[in-house]
């Protein structure tokens, strides 16, 4: 699925002219709209949603396209009475082997955690989009990355991990549903697309990637017994050794994911002596900061995690191994991804943070100054 990862966009100069090449713009869409179309183009079968700002363009777009003969696989669009109802409808639909998605934002993501825990336990493939807004509580409608822990640590009760993908542009919002579904079915696991209010509302031009028709193995689905064979999906294992076996199975599955699916993108890291670590919208700001730092002859680079879970530890370690001694972790929270960076590289390099919360963003200039201060 590597070809679906588009990477950081080419940077434009102040007049909006692309410095490093041109793409052919076919569409000009909001991130949320692009994600909805991306899901449709990958053969989405069903969507169950509940409106919440700033994610509502996803159900709205899907509602408009429901019944469009261009998307014959899209059989069900249903607005649920609650976030809880929506995630449980997703569970039921996923149990039939369908490609099913839900989209929400922070407060709704919290409500969905119960269902996600059951889905993880029953190993149901599904895609859940969290358009991260300001929090905690009702917070506000601005962009934050404060749901990082909730997304990457499991989020609900019991021990499990999900795959978490972080797009950084509107073209990636369009491309990631295909990647998410292929991972969800390959490993029978919920996949979270963790984006934010900025990327959801941001309008950019894009070309939809060609998505090959994906057929997934669904022999496990509860679609009726076949002779003596029947399918039972249950998260309950009353015998202690039985739950122990199941939990160890979930653990070894995620260890395999950790080995095989770490994804990240590097920008100007080959000779870097300071590397910014940022995902989502922050990666865009950090990319500009790196470019500006380079203009000042400061050898800065950027590591952008694409999978937040599994976290791209190997790439970080490789940078440390190459002698990078300074990392600046940029995120829209008061310190969440930085813990994964610390876990990955331990005490082997200096780690500083640039954080902003409340729905505000740091400017590239803030980041440039931060890096300059680190070097003093």
């Amino acid at each position, binding site marked *: 699925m590597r070809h679906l990862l588009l990477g950081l966009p080419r940077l434009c100069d102040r007049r909006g002219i692309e410095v490093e090449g041109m793409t052919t713009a076919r569409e000009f869409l909001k991130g949320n709209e692009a994600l909805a179309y991306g899901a449709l183009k990958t053969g989405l*079968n*069903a969507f*169950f949603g509940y409106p919440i700002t700033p994610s509502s363009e996803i159900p709205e777009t899907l509602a408009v396209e429901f019944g469009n003969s261009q998307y014959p696989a899209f*059989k*069900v669009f*249903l607005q*649920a*009475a*609650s976030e*809880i*109802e*929506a995630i*449980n*409808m*997703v*569970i*039921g*639909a*996923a*149990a*039939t082997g*369908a490609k*099913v998605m839900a989209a929400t934002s922070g407060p709704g993501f919290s409500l969905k955690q*119960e*269902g996600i825990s*059951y889905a993880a336990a*029953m190993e149901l493939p599904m895609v859940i989009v969290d358009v991260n807004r300001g929090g905690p509580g009702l917070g506000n409608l601005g962009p934050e990355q404060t749901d990082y822990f909730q997304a990457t640590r499991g989020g609900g009760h019991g021990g499990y991990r999900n795959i978490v993908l972080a797009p950084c542009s509107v073209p990636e919002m369009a491309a990631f549903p295909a990647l998410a579904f292929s991972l969800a079915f390959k490993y029978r696991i919920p996949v979270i697309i963790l984006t934010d209010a900025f990327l959801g509302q941001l309008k950019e031009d894009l070309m939809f990637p060609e998505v090959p028709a994906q057929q997934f193995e669904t022999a496990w689905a*509860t*679609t*009726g*017994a*076949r*002779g003596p064979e*029947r*399918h*039972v*999906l*249950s*998260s*309950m294992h009353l015998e202690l050794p039985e739950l122990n076996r199941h939990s160890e199975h979930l653990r070894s599955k995620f260890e395999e994911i950790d080995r095989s699916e770490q994804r990240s993108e590097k920008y100007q890291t080959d000779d870097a002596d300071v590397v910014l670590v940022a995902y989502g919208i922050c990666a865009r700001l950090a990319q500009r900061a790196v470019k500006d730092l380079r203009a000042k002859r400061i050898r800065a680079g950027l590591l952008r995690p694409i999978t937040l879970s599994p976290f791209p530890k190997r790439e970080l370690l490789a940078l440390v191994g190459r002698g990078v001694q300074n990392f600046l972790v940029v995120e829209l929270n008061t310190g969440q991804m930085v813990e994964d960076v610390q876990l990955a590289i331990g005490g082997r390099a200096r780690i500083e943070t640039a954080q902003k919360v409340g729905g505000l963003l740091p400017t590239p200039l803030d980041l440039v100054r931060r890096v300059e201060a680190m070097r003093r």
Partner: protein
Amino acid sequence: MIEVQGHYEVKLGPLPTLTGKPTHYCAGCEHGTLTRLIASALHELGARERTVLVDSVGCSVLAHEYINTDAIQAPHGRAPSVMTGIKRLRPDLLVFAVQGDGDAASIGLSELIFAANRGEPITVFLVNNGIYGMTGGQMAPTTPAGMVTMTTPRGRDIAVTGPPMDASKLLATLDGPAYVKRVLLPVTPTPSDDFYNARGSIEGARSVRNAFRVQEMGGFSFVEFVSTCNVNWKMSVLQSKHYATEVLAKVFPPGLFKDKFGVEKR
């Protein structure tokens, strides 16, 4: 074989729709009875290979251990939503859940109401024994006034908790459901305790069969089975049958609340 009003019958002995495992239900509990009624109806309909059972949370969580069809387990109270997801994607499947009163009438009341209001072609069997059984006898939304439970040690005070929740009556106020019925499932003893009337099982068998028929006709069907929980009521089996007949059946009188397709008349 018990003949029930002509072509309704409850088969005893092994059935392909039963796994044959002994149930974990306590002696005197109606869950086992209902399991048999459901398995018998599914067998009669020849529906085993197109049925998905949705387990709820509570004593019915192990229903898939005994009913030999495909099954998926829903989070507490969410079975109607899980059923909706299955049925919308696979309208050809027969989808049903066995829920308890805590599951359906308390934590999952919203999910139940909205599934009913949409008229989802699914079937909910509600086992109402007026108490939380599996968690050890705490007050349920359906607990009758005055009943002593683990969380109402001085009896349920309805001035504090409100009166018992009547799920059947509530659903009957909606346009969505096609079939809403309440059955008193336990055997009813005569005053001298020397004779038991199994009318409840007969009525139950009819209702289970009708509920599945309504689903196949495209409607939402709901049958509430007023049942006993002698262990958590802290009664003998016999006392619990008296209590169900004399107290619970007064709070939740059996009746046909809704029958849009007229299946009861056929």
